[in-house]
């Protein structure tokens, strides 16, 4: 090799406990890596109609051309699989140090196929793979599992593991790596269905660069851009650098966009108590970073547990301050930190589980749901912590809720689907479509269910654009989706693109991997990936009627004093969706047209 890609992927056949090194074919290389590799491979190799928890599904774990290099904010690795939560194609990401270690194994990724007959830990030493008996770690939480592996096999291993939720196929189960989470969409249940409890990597290969001098120059320039942003009082990322991702709480609250009590309200009286600033002030705090990141938005806090003990956790992060905080009417920062920690122990997505719990609490208020042990009341610590445990164990009502908010609503009935705050069964991220129309469109049209990563959140929340307007939002969302898909091939942290001019990306790619493309090619790659995902979802049975928000967004005015908006106008919403499809080169039903696919170089995927 002469650049940062090794052009080798390990294929692991879980059924046979065997592996082989697979050379990356030429046609895949134009997808650069990360999400590009994962999407193309899943679309080519997995039938969209398969049961996500069957051996026919695959997990594709990849890194990109900037992973493991000195480029700042490129710690992330990507998982693509079919989601058991949404039934759509899924991409999810974790930072930390796992991405770099995968690269150092001299590979660009790992594909897990089939399913093992008994539980295994997979050890990957450079390109040597072994399958170890997982019995000693079964039932353990994610951190406990990771510590056990490091003690048993060596502290140099970087680990990915599932908790009890993944073992029990909870549909919102996540994968964890040293507190960093491949959170959305239930990838943890997919690994569980393959009976893989954990995967550990240890690599000695390092990372090469196609042009060391040019790459070093780019990194220096990029570091200077980031340093300016972090030093700026008004930069969002600068605020994250100083107070963690919870720094924006006051801004969201002031805009009446802080989803509270299952999105009934748009502001939360205790928002300050659970803000990043408050954790920084009142709790033991250490700043920590993902691999190579100068922003250090991570925070380790020590906190008191409900039973009078002491514990610590990394986080909570902003999205969790919403899902296990305001959305549950939980203004106690200790309870929030403990709930966050518990999601790590069980190994679940703190977003979807929070939204599912808030849904359950409202069901209980309306007399649709009860529990023999828990009051199921907003703000009640025992109910919050108890439901996380019951969902993680699939115990009692937890077994219904473990299916995700939309599936649970179907089971519970009584019109509860109207206030299950989800799209395609994936819980809302921390934003209110009734307050932020573009973000709502992004939730509805996301290929992985209610997703914030590709939403115009910054533009709307900071008032660069009118948050309540429908004008130009379709164009804005399309652009966001394409750009973010493009940078997720590298794999950039979402915050990188907040600060770094896009002109950097082609230069970075050339200097790292040696691949030449211009910025328009790069955007087009993002769009190509978006269309491949869409085709997969159409094949899985999704259509226009699925690109919709729950009825609450169109019918229920936001309560409380802070929000001048009432509801989303359904007619305008449908017009905006039609405009969005049209901008994408899709027909009224959201089906990509031949001309568009041809223009993107994927005409062969057209299915009339």
């Amino acid at each position: 090799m002469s650049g940062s890609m090794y052009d080798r992927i390990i294929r692991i056949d879980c059924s046979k406990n065997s592996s082989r090194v697979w050379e990356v074919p030429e046609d895949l290389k134009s997808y650069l890596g990360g999400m590009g590799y994962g999407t193309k491979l899943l679309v080519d190799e997995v039938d969209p109609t398969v049961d996500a928890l069957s051996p026919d599904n695959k997990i594709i774990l990849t890194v990109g051309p900037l992973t493991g290099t000195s480029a700042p904010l490129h710690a992330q690795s990507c998982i693509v699989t079919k989601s058991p939560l949404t039934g759509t194609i899924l991409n999810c990401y974790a930072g930390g140090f796992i991405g770099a270690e995968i690269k150092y194994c001299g590979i660009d990724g790992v594909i897990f196929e089939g399913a093992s007959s008994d539980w295994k830990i997979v050890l990957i030493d450079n390109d040597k793979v072994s399958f170890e008996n997982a019995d000693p770690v079964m039932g353990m939480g994610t951190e406990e599992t990771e510590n056990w592996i490091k003690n048993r096999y060596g502290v140099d291993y970087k680990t990915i593991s599932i908790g009890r939720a993944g073992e029990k196929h909870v549909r919102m189960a996540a994968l964890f790596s040293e507190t960093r989470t491949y959170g959305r969409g239930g990838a943890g249940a997919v690994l569980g269905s393959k009976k893989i409890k954990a995967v550990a990597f240890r690599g000695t290969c390092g990372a090469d660069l196609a042009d060391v001098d040019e790459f070093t120059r780019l990194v220096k320039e990029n570091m200077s851009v980031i340093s300016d942003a972090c030093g700026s009082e008004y930069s969002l990322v600068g605020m994250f650098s100083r107070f963690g991702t919870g720094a924006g709480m006051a801004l969201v609250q002031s805009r009446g966009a802080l989803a509270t009590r299952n999105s009934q309200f748009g502001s939360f009286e205790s928002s300050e108590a659970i803000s990043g600033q408050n954790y920084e002030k009142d709790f033991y705090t250490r700043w920590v970073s993902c691999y190579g990141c100068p922003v250090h938005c991570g925070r380790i806090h020590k906190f008191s547990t409900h039973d009078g003990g002491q514990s610590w956790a990394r986080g909570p992060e902003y999205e969790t301050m919403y899902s296990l905080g305001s959305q549950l009417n939980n203004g106690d920062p200790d309870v929030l930190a403990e709930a966050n920690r518990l999601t790590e122990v069980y190994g679940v997505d703190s977003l979807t589980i929070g939204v599912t719990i808030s849904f359950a609490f409202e069901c209980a208020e309306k007399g649709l749901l009860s529990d023999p042990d828990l009051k199921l009341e907003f703000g009640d610590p025992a109910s919050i912590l108890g439901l996380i445990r019951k969902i993680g164990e699939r115990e009692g009502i937890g077994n219904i809720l473990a299916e995700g908010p939309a599936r649970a609503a179907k089971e519970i009935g009584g019109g509860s689907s109207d206030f299950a705050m989800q799209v395609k069964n994936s819980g809302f991220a921390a934003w209110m479509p009734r307050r932020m129309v573009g973000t709502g469109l992004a939730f509805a049209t996301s290929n992985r269910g209610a997703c914030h990563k590709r939403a115009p959140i910054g533009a709307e929340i900071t008032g660069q654009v009118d948050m309540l307007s429908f004008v130009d939002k379709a164009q804005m969302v399309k652009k966001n989706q394409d750009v973010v898909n493009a940078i997720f091939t590298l794999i950039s942290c979402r915050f990188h693109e907040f600060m770094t001019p896009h002109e950097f990306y082609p230069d970075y790619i050339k200097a790292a991997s040696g691949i030449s493309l211009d910025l328009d090619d790069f955007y087009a790659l993002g769009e190509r990936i978006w269309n491949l995902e869409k085709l997969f979802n159409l094949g899985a049975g999704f259509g226009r009627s699925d690109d919709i928000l729950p009825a609450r967004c169109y019918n229920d005015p936001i309560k409380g004093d802070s929000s001048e908006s009432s509801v989303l106008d359904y007619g305008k919403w449908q017009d905006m969706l039609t405009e969005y499809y049209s901008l994408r080169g899709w027909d009224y039903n959201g089906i990509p047209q031949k001309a568009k696919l041809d223009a993107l170089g994927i005409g062969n995927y057209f299915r009339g």
Partner: protein
Amino acid sequence: MRLKVDTEKCTECGRCTTICSLTKVGRIQPLAARIRITRRWPETPLIAVCRFEDCLGNPCIESCPFDAIRIINGKVEIIEDECQGCAECVAVCPYGAIKMNDQSQKAFKCDLCGGSPACVAECVTGAIIWVEEA
């Protein structure tokens, strides 16, 4: 001039190790870095790097049976050609700053980049600084 580390300020990002390996071996390979960060969550990390002036008695010099570790231009250096790979120095270093190269079986450690340490320039929080006095 000397290196000074402040573990309270370290965010464990590892940019020091990344840039050290790029400087010393021409590629990114934290295992080959002359500095090492060991995580101890929730507490502060260990930062292992040769501390020259702060090191009492430079026990690595005494420990080497082959006299391959000497003071040159006022700095302790491991003479790679003369190192026989016994790893005695690794065991005695009070800062855990000497490592063995698995391939060559030679000991290696920080040489301060000749007076302009690359890691210092890369550390954004000031956890490693280059100062006149202790």
